[in-house]
């Protein structure tokens, strides 16, 4: 009883309130930057995958800016891994500005060692 009546204090906004992914793509020569905002999950990661697929043939560098990404599941990690694999022999991939929840997931899965994180 007491527990359920407790006022929340350090509970911040929950990730489910932002059940979306916004992707802003910019291009500088053969460098493509994807600014991601919201959630990269089972339902939203196909959208990112198709945006990456559109440019991957032309790209020499892919940058993922995760400053506003507050949630990533294995579905999102698979898109990042697939992108890194696609760039492996033809250029580079960089992940930039990761937030704490995303950093925790990278640490947990070894992706922190796998990617070039700026």
């Amino acid at each position: 009883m007491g527990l359920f009546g407790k006022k929340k204090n350090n509970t911040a906004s929950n990730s489910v309130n932002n059940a979306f992914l916004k992707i802003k793509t910019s291009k500088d020569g053969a460098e493509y930057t994807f600014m991601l905002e919201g959630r990269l999950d089972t339902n939203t990661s196909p959208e990112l995958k198709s945006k990456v697929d559109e440019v991957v043939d032309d790209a020499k560098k892919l940058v993922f800016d995760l400053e506003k990404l507050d949630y990533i599941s294995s579905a999102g990690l698979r898109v990042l891994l697939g992108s890194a694999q696609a760039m492996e022999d033809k250029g580079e991939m960089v992940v930039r500005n990761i937030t704490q929840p995303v950093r925790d997931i990278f640490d947990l899965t070894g992706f922190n060692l796998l990617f070039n994180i700026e």
Partner: protein
Amino acid sequence: MKELVIEAERKNLIQVQAFIDEQLEAVGCPMLTQTAIDIAVEELFVNIASYAYGPEIGIAVVQVSVYEEPLSVEITFIDNGKQYDPLAKPDPDTTLSVKERKKGGLGIFMVKKSMDNVNYEYKDGKNILTIKKNLS
């Protein structure tokens, strides 16, 4: 114990997570822990949605219990689809290079690593998967 009975479809993921979050927020779960639990819930629910019932749509039951001392949460996923123990899958090798890394097995590995306890049993024709996480 709170329970949600829902069709095991990917599009219902947000509803399942909202149900879990509601219970977690009621006990002041720290945000990073909540995110870890949300991710585990996604991996397990999407597993059921993707594999348990083949092309058919079946039901998933999600139960949440909160315990005191230590403050912890237990979440159970039940389906009556085909028998499948996701914990039996070998863990991915996290030391491999980009080229060698495989995409499979990542989700359940994340669940195993981030939760304090993960248990699977098959009983009375049901897959029962339980995760536990300390909140304090």
